[in-house]
């Protein structure tokens, strides 16, 4: 696994710049497209908005040149494009709903985007080496669980659309679960890199699988119970699924043992069945999944499906469909909104952007030399994939609908903050992964790391 490179790896920052300009260009074109088809004229704020987007993304690009010059050159253009397209769609829905630009959701989303980019920049600036985070493994655990239970506290917790996953402070509402996802990934990575030997080597063999000892099952049981509690008390199916999936995936990467996946799936199925028997809101979701057109229940999935059908192969064109007929068209159902207006082909392109994003994250995990970085990058990338699957799978009836936002696309400040921070972490790790070994300033010697790896890989 050790790669000894005799040439200096290229930073590829110019590739990033070119792709970034392309991404901004596509977003501006989409914005113009909406203006022309809805109002028949160029959007009045085109120059300001376009320049604003360009300045923000260029600033981030310059920061990368300065602080993480070997970072993966694809990540920033991809998330810029996704974030920008999300903004265009939210702006388009503002128009359809008759919301004025000053009080529209797009402006708020733009503000959140700027804030999210700023926070991501701060993360990149101060976090010189991701391995620093390993020191805070158990702090992360406390913070992560704290964030998860925060909405349950009386006074600041808010119930929105049946799920108690929000906290409110004055006019601001926030979903701490989004941040908890990242913090818990840090905890999982730190914890698993410490305990992986015990978890992967000890155990007895049953039917070809090496099953862990009873006392090693502790962590997975804790994670399982935790996600069930989230499901029960916050009625948040999506986060519950996401957290548990993330944990099982990281456990598998850490231990390389398929038996963990088997145990995880078994626990998940058991828990899901139990939840189905006990909770009416889970039953409602399952019924909605099996027959979205049955009368006497919510028709939100049905409306999304009909929206996507209206788009067909090529879409109605931006601004020419009626995505506003779907509930939560700018958040949970933003994918049907895109499906309607840019068609199946456009939707494929969007999904491919996510695939690219996730695979670049996994590529980073492959490339980075320390176990903690591998687990963290792999976990974060997988969490994006899982979240996409849960959201898109929910609206396209692969799995029952759960309430989660599409990373970068959906309306929502907490989601943007969390996902931009996530990308900042990935950028930082990828910088470490692609940087020539001699340049690594701190941490254990590369040779020592490599040796450990060889043992693990067999």
């Amino acid at each position, binding site marked *: *696994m050790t790669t000894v490179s005799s040439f200096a790896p290229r930073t590829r920052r110019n590739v990033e710049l070119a792709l970034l300009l392309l991404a901004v260009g596509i977003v501006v074109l989409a914005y113009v497209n909406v203006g022309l088809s809805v109002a028949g004229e160029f959007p009045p704020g085109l120059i300001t908005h376009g320049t604003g987007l360009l300045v923000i993304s260029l600033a981030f690009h310059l920061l990368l040149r300065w602080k993480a010059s070997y970072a993966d050159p694809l990540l920033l253009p991809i998330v810029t494009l996704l974030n920008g397209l999300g903004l265009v769609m939210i702006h388009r829905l503002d128009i359809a709903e008759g919301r004025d630009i000053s009080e529209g959701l797009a402006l708020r989303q733009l503000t959140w985007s700027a804030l999210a980019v700023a926070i991501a920049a701060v993360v990149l600036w101060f976090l010189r080496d991701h391995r620093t985070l390993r020191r805070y493994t158990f702090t992360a655990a406390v913070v992560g669980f704290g964030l998860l239970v925060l909405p349950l506290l009386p006074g600041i917790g808010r119930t929105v659309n049946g799920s108690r996953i929000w906290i409110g402070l004055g006019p601001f509402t926030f979903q701490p679960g989004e941040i908890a996802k990242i913090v818990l990934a840090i905890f999982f990575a730190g914890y698993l890199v410490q305990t992986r030997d015990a978890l992967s080597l000890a155990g007895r063999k049953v039917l070809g699988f090496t099953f862990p000892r009873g006392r090693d099952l502790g962590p997975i049981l804790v994670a399982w119970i935790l996600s069930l509690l989230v499901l029960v008390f916050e009625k948040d199916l999506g986060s519950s699924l996401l957290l548990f999936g993330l944990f099982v*995936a990281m456990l*598998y*990467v*850490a231990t*390389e043992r398929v038996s963990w996946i088997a145990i995880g799936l078994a626990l998940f199925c058991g828990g899901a069945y139990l939840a189905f028997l006990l909770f009416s809101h889970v039953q409602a979701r399952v019924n909605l999944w099996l027959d979205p*057109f049955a009368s006497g229940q919510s*028709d939100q999935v*049905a409306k999304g*499906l*009909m*929206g*996507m*059908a*209206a*788009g*067909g*192969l090529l879409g109605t064109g931006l601004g020419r*469909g*009626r995505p506003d*007929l779907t509930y939560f068209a700018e958040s949970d159902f933003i994918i049907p909104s895109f*499906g309607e207006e840019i*068609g*199946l082909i456009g*939707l*494929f392109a969007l*999904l491919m952007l*996510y*695939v690219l994003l*996730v*695979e670049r994250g*996994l590529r980073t*995990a*492959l490339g980075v030399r320390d*176990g903690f970085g*591998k*687990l963290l990058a*792999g976990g974060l*990338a*997988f969490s994006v*994939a*899982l979240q*996409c*699957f849960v959201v*898109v*799978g929910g609206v*396209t*009836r*692969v799995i029952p609908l759960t309430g989660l936002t599409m990373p970068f696309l959906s309306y929502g400040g907490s989601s943007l903050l969390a996902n931009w921070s996530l990308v900042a972490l990935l950028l930082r790790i990828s910088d470490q992964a692609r940087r020539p070994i001699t340049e690594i300033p701190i941490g254990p010697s590369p040779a020592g790391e490599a040796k450990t*790896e060889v043992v*693990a*890989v067999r």
Partner: protein
Amino acid sequence: MNAPLRRLSMVVALLFSALLVSSTFIQFVQAKSLQERPENRRTLLANYARERGQILVGGTPVAKSVASDDELKWLRTYPKGELYAHLTGYYSFTYGAGGGIEGAENALLSGSSDKLFYRRVSDILTGKDQTGASLELTINAKAQAAAEKALGDQRGAVVALDPSTGEVLALVSHPSYDPSVLSSHDTDAVVKAWKDLNADPTRPMVDRAIAGNLYPPGSTFKIVTSAAALESGKFTEESQIPGPATLDLPQTSDPLPNDDRQPCGPDNKVTLKRALEISCNTAFGWLGMELGADDFRSQAAKFGIGDRLTIPMTVTPSSVPAELNEPQLAQSAIGQYDVRVTPLQVAMISAAVANRGIVMKPHLVKKVTSSDLEVLDEPPPEQLSQAVTPDTASALTRMMQGVVEDGTGTAAQIDGVDVAGKTGTAQHEIGKPPHAWFTGFAPAVDSKVAVAVVVEDGGNAGNEAAGGRVAAPIAKAVMQAVLGK
């Protein structure tokens, strides 16, 4: 840890593959069926975003869309709402399209029909606003107005056909309604109007001409029995057949009487021709039993009874019961028992006689044109069947002329025109006045129009009603309108 990471990336690929498959399934495979779901507001909204085609009668729109400045960009209007309600049908945002051409040719009018595919493509390429196709009806505006006026406020239906082409010249059903109240953009008013119309016991939205509860045809069905008799070769129009005051029926103690309880001729005998002219029940009851159920039923089928027709609205098939014993057969031969017909079917019988025995497929759409008046489709006349030989048709024509000249249908006479016809007075429910019928065609030779009229429960005449008195004048008015007399 690299091996599990690689496997994890395979899992990611699998997850996304599932999403690609599911979205393809929705947006490509199922797209059409999802779009056609009745609860799909998008399809309706998309239709409103496009100018819907007009429905025209003689070049004048009877249904057209006018620009509207609310969310729905087009308002559907019906300039002569009540007169053409059952032809146009309604186009409502709340209740969809239905009731007539609006429902039956929705795809063409809305522009979503596959037949318009190439036009849509060229419209997209040339940047033209897309519009639905317009439909020119075969309706003769004068005949339609005459039928409406003659029927007055009586419940019933009038159908006029061009015998040689099957074109529907008039189609009136009473009572009627104004489709404009359903196409309004005031949802509350539309919902109220819809509920009122559906709660109305006279059922104004039912098209009695083609799709109401079917009527017993009464004596108009004697044309079918006569046709079966002539086609059998055993009878001519001059054949003497029994016509007693009452006809004893086997297997029952109820005999079949004539209306006036008198024999139809001296010595209880009457010619077939005269029996039709005076509508002799006993003669036709005897004839039915003599011919047998199979001949009778197959003759009825040749006239189109039992056929599923779309004109393009769906026509309820008329029916003769599948099993008939002798007394039931005698009753059926005079259009009673369980024989049930639409006025359109009765008009088709007359039209077939007028057209040398050939039944033409009735149709309402003369031309389909694009918004720039390019003709997209002009369906040619279609033959449905040969009901009787030309010789039989001539004999039937002479017999039906006798009905109007010197029989029960004298009220249908038109100066200077030979009119052929048949009256009917159909018992349908004990204690209720009979339905009054008239069907016929004019001129007798080379005829231009065939008509059927039914007036429910005797109309204004009530218990005194007879087809000759109540229905014949209405038919006469329609025929006059078509012939310009």
